[in-house]
């Protein structure tokens, strides 16, 4: 069986679902970052697959941009995370409620 566009899109959807579930359920900030990465990369898979399907490089270009932005986001995020951990000795989301409404 040849692997076609649909397979890639199904994979992307499954990964997106996993990421979404992680975003919703994880209480550990680090795990939340991982879930976000899964979300972003599932979209990247979708972009790359459709780009290949249409023979249009724009989608792949977009995937690169997403990777670059995700990398910088993780860099900043991890930095903040480390500072937070040093101060509070915990990275549990439920305890990050200094700005509660």
């Amino acid at each position, binding site marked *: 069986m040849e692997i076609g566009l649909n397979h890639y899109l199904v994979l992307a959807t499954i990964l997106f679902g996993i990421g979404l579930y992680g975003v919703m359920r994880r209480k550990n900030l680090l795990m939340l970052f991982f879930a976000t990465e899964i979300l972003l990369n599932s979209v990247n898979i979708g972009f790359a697959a459709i780009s290949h399907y249409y023979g249009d490089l724009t989608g792949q270009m977009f995937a690169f941009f997403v990777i670059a932005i995700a990398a910088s986001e993780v860099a900043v995020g991890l930095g903040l995370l480390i500072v937070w951990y040093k101060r509070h000795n915990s990275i549990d*989301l439920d305890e990050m*409620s200094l700005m*509660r409404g």
Partner: protein
Amino acid sequence: MEKYLYIALFAPLVSSLFAALFTAQPKKQFVGIVTSLLIFTSFVSSSILLVYILKGGEPIHVELMTWMATGGLYIPFGFVVDEVSVVMMMVVTLVSTVVHVYSNGYMDHDKSFNRFFAWLSAFVFSMMVLVMSDNFAGLFIGWEGVGLCSWGLIGFWYNRESATWAANEAFIMNRIADLGMLIGLFLIYWNTGTLQYDEAFAKLPYLDTATLTWTGIFLFIGAMGKSAQFPLHTWLADAMEGPTPVSALIHAATMVTAGVYLVIRAHPLFDLIPHVGLFIASLGAFVAIFAASMALVNRDMKRIIAYSTLSQLGYMFAAAGLGAYWVALFHLMAHAFFKALLFLGAGNVMHAMHDELDPFKMGGLKKTMKWTWIMMTIASFALAGVFPLAGFYSKDAILETAFVEHHFIIYTVLLFTAGLTAFYSFRLVALIFHGEERYKLFGIHPHEAYKYMLVAMSPLLVLAIIAGAFQHTFFELVEEALHAVHYHIHSEVVVWIMTIGTQAFVIAMIIYAYKKYARKDIKIPDGTSPVEQSFIYKLLFNQYYIPYFYEEYIVKPYQELSEIFWKKVDLKIVDATVDGIAKVLYSTGAATRGMQNGNLSTMLRWMVVGLVLLLLIAVAIGITVRYSERITLFLSGLGVL
């Protein structure tokens, strides 16, 4: 001449605004003086205008500015000084000047001296607008303005509950009548397309009788309220709660005659509908005798004079209704003089007796209050219509009118009322000034009023005596404006019999009143004498039970109805709806505030929910767009589109 018109009109306004500056301050004598001078200025200007018109000058018509101009509606602030309005201006400004000067003395010890003058001058301004306006809209402004000032002045002593009650009663009764008046004005505008007197009247003859009749009836309902005609008369007697100068100015000389003025002003309309005129005349005659009968037994000095005013207004309407507009206007003028004089005299008596109003508790005051006695006696003679005082000429003209027009029932009623008038007037004079000095029982030490108050009253005294002499001049003045005709009885003998008969009747009543009430052994009635036990006395003393009837059958049911509406409709439906909306919002807020708990995890979950919802909407829209044709087909199959 326009200059004088503006001075006459706006001097009272300036006066009122000036006095209004000091309303919150304790008594300032100069406020009384300045306002009196300004009103006097207005009087002088009116006199100049009167002389100008008397010399045959053209009526002055000015347009101060445009008030409303939209589409076909054009109403300017226009003022006119013609033969009719100049007479009214004279009456208003003259009596106002006298009353202003008099009030300086009368309100001497009152805390709200300044406020009194602010209201009084505001009243004069409103009255001037009413009589000088050249269109119905301006007349209506003045009409409402005098109503407002009357409210403020009846309820001047607002810490007395009876005064505020009377003020509200007067205001509300007038509102009822004003609704009629407004409908009349709408009918005029609807049918003629204008509210200017001359333009509207020019178009009236082309309208059908039914329209004219309704217009006339509704306008007259307005006049009934302001002039306190039956059945809207109860407010006038209660309005006596106000200070006495107010009663003299507003509830005797000027405001209450506004209704008569309206009928006179709209005479081209009432000329076209004589059946309504006959109704007006009949009602006038009825009110004349009805009010006079109540005055016969009343024991409140001011109320007696108020009923007398009511009765005389009935005379005026009787004349106006029969088409004798100039006679009505003449009686209005003469009545203003002697009735204001009578009221001011009553004010002197009240001051002397420390606000005692029951004439049975007075007696023998002529020794201490000689001048007041003379003035009130002459005013009463004028009111009774004794030759050669003012009332004789005007009342005689009304009686002649009724006779010549062959309305013998109206004539008889009015003639009989003339006798009643003589009786109650001199009952009052006899009780106050003659007989035993009964006030000594109450430890009162009466004193005559200030000299300048008496001097201020003297112009009215002079006019009450000589006004009748101007009858011919007056006739010539308004002859053209009101299509006046002399009512002559052809047979010389009949005239003499009528005049002498009337005079004899009136004088007999006066003597009878003196005989009955000037005796030494008058007792203060205590409700035990056979007369007081009789049905008629009780009926008259309780004002035919009409106030009782209104209270029981209109005020109370209305109050109960209001209570039902308040408790059932307002609280349970209207308020409940409004509260319900607020509660829904509040409870929604309370229920959903959990979303905003500041927890990142919760927020992310809600973000996902939002995302899913937006996606679903996008998908739904996409499907709808794609299958729009089929959906349209389906819906048209169902008959929806």
